[in-house]
């Protein structure tokens, strides 16, 4: 893999049942590229939580994944309502998801904390009523 590989996915915000398809796809790509299971698990869980967030809160968005031998970078961009208080959103258990989302197993306020936990770096840029960009980096150990 001399050149970094780039994968881009449109995340459909209309259909909750399909949320996670892009993360499943990345998991397969990384497996075929021969990355260690632990690295694959960290990347796919972080991206999966991000994908779910984009579907729940932002009506979908775009996921870009850059795969290098030493690191994997995920950038999630949406044009949703934005996050007014990022520190508050980062607290475990804090959630603004509607009850309907909780009844299908998400919205426990663990998404962003999980994303941070499984990655080596996470940067959130958000502007209210404009959208949110989440950058995550997983180092290959």
């Amino acid at each position: 893999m001399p050149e970094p590989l780039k994968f881009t996915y449109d995340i459909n915000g209309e259909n909750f049942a399909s949320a996670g398809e892009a993360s499943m796809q990345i998991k397969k790509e990384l497996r075929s590229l021969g990355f260690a299971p632990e690295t694959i698990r960290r990347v796919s869980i972080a991206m999966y939580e991000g994908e779910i967030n984009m579907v729940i809160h932002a009506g979908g968005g775009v996921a870009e994944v850059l795969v290098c031998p030493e690191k994997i970078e995920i950038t999630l961009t949406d044009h949703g309502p934005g996050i007014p208080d990022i520190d508050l959103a980062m607290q475990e258990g804090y959630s603004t998801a509607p009850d309907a989302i909780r009844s299908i197993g998400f919205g426990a306020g663990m998404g962003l904390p999980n994303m941070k936990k499984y990655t080596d770096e996470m940067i959130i840029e958000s502007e209210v009523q404009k959208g949110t960009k989440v950058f995550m980096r997983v180092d290959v150990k």
Partner: protein
Amino acid sequence: MKIEVVKQLLGAQVVCGEEHLDTDVFSACGSDMMSDVLAYVKDQAVLLTGLVNEQVIRTAAMMDMKCIVFVRNKRPTPQMVDLAECNGIVVMTSPLRMFEACGKLYEGGLNRDGATDA
């Protein structure tokens, strides 16, 4: 513990993945909250849940889990079964309630000793 033993302890019926019943599993997780599964599971190979939707299968796949048990006789949809088959996950359904199902597996030896920091 073999998945076959999980099936026997829970009086479960296999929906798909019969060919993987010989696989060994070392720990389990019982939850209806998928974000909690994604947060706390280490090397937990069996997921017990009362939640029935496609995200249950995707969550298990992301965590490299080997077996999903739906409690209280809940049945997965054909789309969920297809997704599980693509990922080599055994799916079964048990008449037991969550508490009882977890208790039987714990008593049968699928306890904390099996969890690793993988």
